[in-house]
């Protein structure tokens, strides 16, 4: 066999191997075994399996469920399957300040443990951003009061320490 033909055979073999590998990953059920996070309903239906190890839970922050205790820096909220009020949800408690992107209805992934009392204790709170990028709309500011509050806080940082 000439080197050229040998190389072509090698190319064919490598391409077939790569194609098979890709097909296996794309169409095999590898995704079922490689789950980055569980949804609240999956967590609830998994029962005892969910109590053991450190797991990730992902979903949407249920509107109206955020409770922030500044004194103890404890953050309580519910992670739901979807933004609807009747979606299944899990109570999450986090002991750290969440990322600034954190708000109602935003996607989050929390890492931690779920105990039998039905509380998910999070060690790590991650905020999931959507693929939308928009300029701030003029006139339409749904969270205006919070913005002004935040702006007040930013101005306060600019003043020297000790100032009110």
């Amino acid at each position, binding site marked *: 066999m000439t080197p050229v033909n040998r190389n072509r055979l*090698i190319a064919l073999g490598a391409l077939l191997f790569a194609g098979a590998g890709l097909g296996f990953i794309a169409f095999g059920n590898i995704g079922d075994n490689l789950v980055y*996070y569980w949804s609240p309903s999956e967590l609830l239906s998994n029962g005892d399996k969910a109590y053991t190890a450190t797991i990730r839970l992902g979903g949407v922050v249920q509107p109206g469920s955020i409770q922030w205790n500044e004194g103890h820096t404890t953050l309580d909220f519910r992670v739901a399957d979807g933004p609807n009020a009747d979606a299944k949800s899990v109570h999450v408690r986090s002991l750290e300040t969440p990322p600034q992107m954190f708000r109602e209805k935003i996607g989050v992934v929390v890492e931690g443990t779920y105990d039998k009392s039905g509380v998910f204790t999070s060690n790590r709170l991650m905020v999931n951003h959507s693929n939308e990028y928009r300029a701030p709309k003029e006139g339409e500011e749904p969270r205006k009061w919070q913005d002004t509050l935040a702006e007040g806080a930013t101005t306060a940082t600019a003043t020297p320490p000790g100032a009110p």
Partner: protein
Amino acid sequence: MNKFVKFGLPALTLALLGAGWWLGLAWAPPDREMGEVQRIMYVHVPLQWMAMMAMFINFVAAVTYLMRQSWKTDAMAEASAEVGLLFGTLGMITGSIWGRPTWGVYWSWDPRLTSEAILLVSYTGYLVLRRFVEDPEKRAVWSAVVAIIGAINLPIVWFSVRWWRSLHQVQSSPKTVDPQMVLPLRVSAFGMLALLIVFMVHRYRIALAERKAEVALPEALPTDDPALRASHSSKVA
């Protein structure tokens, strides 16, 4: 190397990247939620696109080399892998920095980040393999095989956000991005493309010169130079 490649292309690169980044950093509005941090998009996204493109060129060059032996395609494969690795690594670093304020973490083993890490490791391995094999022909064949198999990472990285649940969001499109942000992204992407070409051209010339020096011994290996090939065949005849 003609004048355009030597002077025009670098100038075009500077102009496009400068314009794109100026538009992105000063002209474009901040994002409604991410604020100023969203401006990282104009460097992170072009870097990742061009890394993918360089690695795809690497795949094409590897297949072409095996189909028809030539030091040019081997040199092209070497150049694209190195430049792709540079862009990919920078893409990962900028993405990680972007992740800190938005996600809250620099890193998480989500499918996109994990597959990207595997991608970078496999192209690092490719370049290491090239370093370790002394014989130019063996090196070219073996590394071409690694390149072809390593290229399956490209669709995996691209589709990882669609196939599996991930922290990383799915691809944006002009529908999900405001026009004032699409323009700086486009200009920056073309600037990055020009930079990719500049780097590739120079890296390719280095690789080709190295190959030619390696195979300088007469009749050692096939050559791309038609004059040499002619003299060789006449000798045989």
